[in-house]
């Protein structure tokens, strides 16, 4: 009996051991590894973003950071309280505040707390002064587990310049702008350190160490000097016109590379370095006006309308009457300032920016049932994102028959409700009455693309919306003979050792639906605009002999707001396209055109500098990224930002211009 028990006992135990150690070995080996090994990522140094001449737009700087080792602290007899109290005295922080930073987050520990690994040094004070750092490192016996180390942080040598284009870094991850789009190239590969720990979490030894691979440098086609010139020009124009926001785009016409992308209001991305509070975040102007801002293009749109006319068989050199008004249906559409300019060709229509010629054209096309205008506009790249290497790009809007019908169907119910109720919440009685009238009309019937819609469309109104970037690439295409590029800010990705990883070429997105002859005609007409046309005043005395700037003004009405001011321009040499927009900037000739002139003169100034001092410019495009960043030697950690990762976009600044002009 007992023998049987003994045999059964031995068999049971040996069987169980076989199951645990032979059948389930892998599972338990894995579990043992999980228990025993702690892996701590070693963050790599993030790559720089430099401009076309190699000047760093975003780089890294080291700064002294005081860190605390939570595990070492836990091994103190009092759990590290005394150490933290002494540290608090040196850092002039209350004990509580430090203790909260150092405690580990858990199910019952809410923020503030440390979200990272307990085996990572926890930063408690950044950018401490040298005497404080010295005090801590010299009194190590008083500060077990406390270290001062140099950590890299993102710095922006040009401050707020190109802030939206560059984006920012939060929690070692690139957000928005180039930091976001080229995050994979810039981020590098984190290293890792595997450490053996015992049951108390004390590190017994380092098992394996993989050094991090530093991130690559992104060379952009931005020229920091032109960027600065463009931003200053927009800022001056905003100041003098009282406009709220504005943008400027400078693009290489032949290639689609972006030289400058200015958008105001902007902010200094350095705010991200120390973490942004929720309140600060709400106030940050995160919208990139050049890429995400949409406005009615006004008369800058007419290059598309002229091409449409040519495509529809209208002779560009034929004479057209430019009366003060033109009646479509039962409504009179007025010329700008109700001027009667007499007979002119399409050349004159562009130079003088006659509206009534285009009204008639549009009305006639509409009566024929032709959609030449809409089709041509789409062919100019409007109504769809350009595909630029920047996030959150706006598509603009090219309304047409189908779009209007769809919109009407979607909003009919609301229109009928408003037709009955009106807009009692609106303070402005006049506006409320106007909107109620529209609502009534849209309730009874609507969604029909009328002659009036076509007329508004022809001069860049009536729901047409473009981004400055879209307009710039369309004008660049006019300048370069018809090639639409998908613009690029990135030029190439370069390894820290200087070797090129890849070169970025702006892909061709399409061809303008216009013959070479039409484009030549348009270029010729636009070259007269700054000399004798609508921009004559703004460009008085401009050295056209040096740079033959051609351009087009645009003044777009925006319901309830001041006009949107546009100037779109290009030159054969340097082959740049410059587009300026000022939201609520007034007339194009008065707001945007002078700003564009500023930019062109700045570009001329740089070109002359290059001519006279060749040594300063000869190495352009060849210089690799600056090697001045000494921080690559240092272990780099971004302080985890406490800011929540809420939606990147600020409230849409899209203005009310979708309202139809009546």
């Amino acid at each position, binding site marked *: 009996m007992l023998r049987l028990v003994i045999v059964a006992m031995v068999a049971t*135990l040996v069987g169980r051991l076989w199951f645990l150690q032979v059948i389930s070995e892998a599972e338990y080996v894995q579990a043992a590894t999980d228990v025993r090994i702690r892996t701590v990522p070693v963050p790599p140094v993030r790559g720089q973003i430099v401009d076309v001449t190699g000047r760093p737009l975003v780089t890294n700087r080291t700064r002294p950071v005081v860190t605390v080792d939570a595990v070492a602290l836990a091994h103190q007899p009092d759990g590290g309280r005394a150490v933290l109290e002494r540290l608090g005295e040196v850092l002039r922080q209350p004990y509580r505040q430090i203790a909260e930073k150092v405690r580990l987050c858990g199910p019952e520990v809410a923020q503030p707390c440390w979200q990272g690994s307990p085996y990572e040094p926890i930063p408690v004070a950044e950018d401490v002064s040298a005497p404080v750092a010295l005090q801590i490192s010299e009194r190590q016996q008083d500060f077990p587990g406390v270290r001062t180390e140099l950590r890299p942080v993102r710095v922006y040598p040009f401050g707020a310049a190109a802030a939206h284009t560059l984006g920012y870094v939060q929690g070692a991850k690139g957000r928005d702008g180039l930091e976001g789009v080229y995050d994979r190239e810039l981020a590098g590969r984190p290293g890792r350190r595997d450490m053996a720990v015992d049951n108390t979490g004390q590190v017994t030894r380092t098992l394996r160490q993989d050094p991090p691979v530093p991130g690559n440098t992104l060379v952009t086609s931005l020229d920091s000097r032109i960027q600065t010139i463009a931003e200053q020009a927009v800022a001056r124009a905003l100041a003098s016109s009282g406009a709220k926001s504005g943008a400027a785009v400078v693009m290489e016409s032949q290639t689609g590379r972006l030289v400058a992308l200015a958008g105001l209001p902007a902010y200094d991305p350095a705010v991200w370095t120390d973490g942004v509070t929720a309140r600060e975040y709400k106030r940050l102007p995160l919208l990139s006006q050049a890429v995400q801002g949409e406005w009615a293009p006004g008369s800058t749109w007419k290059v598309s309308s002229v091409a449409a006319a040519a495509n529809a068989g209208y002779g560009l050199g034929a004479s057209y009457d430019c009366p003060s008004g033109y009646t479509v249906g039962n409504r009179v559409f007025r010329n700008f300032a109700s001027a009667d300019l007499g007979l002119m060709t399409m050349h004159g229509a562009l130079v003088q920016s006659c509206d009534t010629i285009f009204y008639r054209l549009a009305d006639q096309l509409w009566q024929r049932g032709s959609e030449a205008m809409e089709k041509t506009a789409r062919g100019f790249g409007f109504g769809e994102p350009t595909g630029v290497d920047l996030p959150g790009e706006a598509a603009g809007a090219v309304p047409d028959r189908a779009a209007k019908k769809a919109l009407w169907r979607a909003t009919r119910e609301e229109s009928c409700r408003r037709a009955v109720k009106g807009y009692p919440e609106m303070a402005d009685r006049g506006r409320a009455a106007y909107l109620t009238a529209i609502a009534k009309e849209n309730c009874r019937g609507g969604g029909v693309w009328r002659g009036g819609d076509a007329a508004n469309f022809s001069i860049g109104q009536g729901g047409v919306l473009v981004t400055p970037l879209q307009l710039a690439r369309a004008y660049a295409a006019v300048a370069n003979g018809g090639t639409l590029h998908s613009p690029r800010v990135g030029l190439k990705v370069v390894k820290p050792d200087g070797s090129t990883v890849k070169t970025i070429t702006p892909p061709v997105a399409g061809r303008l639906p216009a013959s070479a002859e039409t484009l030549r005609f348009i270029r010729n007409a636009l070259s007269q605009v700054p000399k004798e046309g609508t921009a004559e005043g703004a460009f008085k005395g401009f050295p056209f002999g040096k740079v033959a700037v051609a351009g087009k003004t645009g003044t777009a009405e925006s319901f309830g707001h001041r006009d949107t001011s546009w100037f779109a321009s290009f030159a054969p040499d340097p082959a740049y396209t410059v587009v300026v927009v000022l939201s609520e900037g007034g007339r194009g000739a008065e707001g945007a055109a002078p700003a564009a002139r500023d930019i062109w003169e700045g570009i001329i100034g740089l070109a002359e500098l290059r001519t006279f001092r060749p040594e300063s410019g000869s190495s352009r495009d060849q210089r690799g990224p600056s090697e001045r960043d000494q921080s690559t030697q240092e272990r780099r950690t971004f302080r985890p930002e406490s800011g929540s990762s809420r939606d990147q976009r600020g409230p849409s600044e899209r203005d009310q211009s979708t309202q139809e002009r009546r």
Partner: protein
Amino acid sequence: MIAVAGRRRVVWAPTLAAPDWTLTLLALALSVVGLLLVWSATRMGGDYGLLIRQAVSVGLGLVLMWFVSRCDLRVLRAYVPLAYVLALVSLAGVLTPLGVRVNGAHSWIVLAPGVQFQPSEFAKVALALAFAVPLGELRDGQSRPGFGGVLLALVLAAVPIGLIALQPDLGTMLVFAAMVSGALLVSGAPKRWLLVLVAGAAGAGFAAWKLGLVRPYQLERLLVLANPGADPGGVGYNAAQARIAIGSGGLTGKGLFNGEQTAGHFVPEQHTDFIFTVAGEEFGFAGAAAIVLAIGVLLWRGLSIARHSASPYGAVLAGGVVSWLAFQTFVNVGMTVGLMPIVGVPLPFVSYGGSATVAGLLAIGLLQAVHRTKAMQRL
């Protein structure tokens, strides 16, 4: 040589047969393996104190084993009342201020600073000797113990069990119960007594639970056994870490002193109750199974000794000793591999612990004494 020299001096044991060398060698081997494992489990930190203490315990145990194995059973029998009373006194003593509380139980008596012992371990020896008296010393004509003998044996067992319940030490109580059951089986007492015992144990367990005498942690340990994944950070921590250490050893183990789980001290109490996890990790299935097999063979020899004993007393004594060691082995190894709830009993010969080591080797001595006392029947 030694045996010859001894025979000359030990005049009261003239008829001893040769010892069972397999038994002695297995016990010795297990003790040496135990020393290696204790060394491995405690060497981090460079402190050899525990290893040296255990070595001293093994040495002392071997000496006592040798001494007892040279005793004629009748001589041992003469000291049973004394041993039994001493056991009761020392068990009562742990409840006095002499006793020291360790891990929530009063199970130690401190003789001098650093010199302490666990009376319950020696009580196992005393009890094995004691209840073999009413079960093994049969009146003429009896082939198995009668009602009176069984009752007396149960009473003899009940007193120390009651004292241990006051410590409280559930593990030792269960060992005693196993010893009584084994001794009853070997003695040939009617099987109904076993049923009575089982029913009594079930009733006592139920009563203890109903009266709230079962600690919550003991209940949780049982629940953890049913659901090993539950609460790995709390009650299930020991069990989970023990299984991880053993399972990660694989077929051949990581080698002595190479066990990372052992070096990291992930298994609590790994040099005492969980010493088997060190064997499992560092020696693998081969080594762990060898230890279990070695104990199995040792127990098998013990049962053979019981069967071939010259006297019923010797048979019952051997049966009690084998039941003791078998139960402890199964419970101890069983809890490390997740087959048994966690109950604090050491692995015989292998676990660190002076009292347990000495008591285990004494038990081997008792088996040898039974084995060697051939002439008993004639006296």
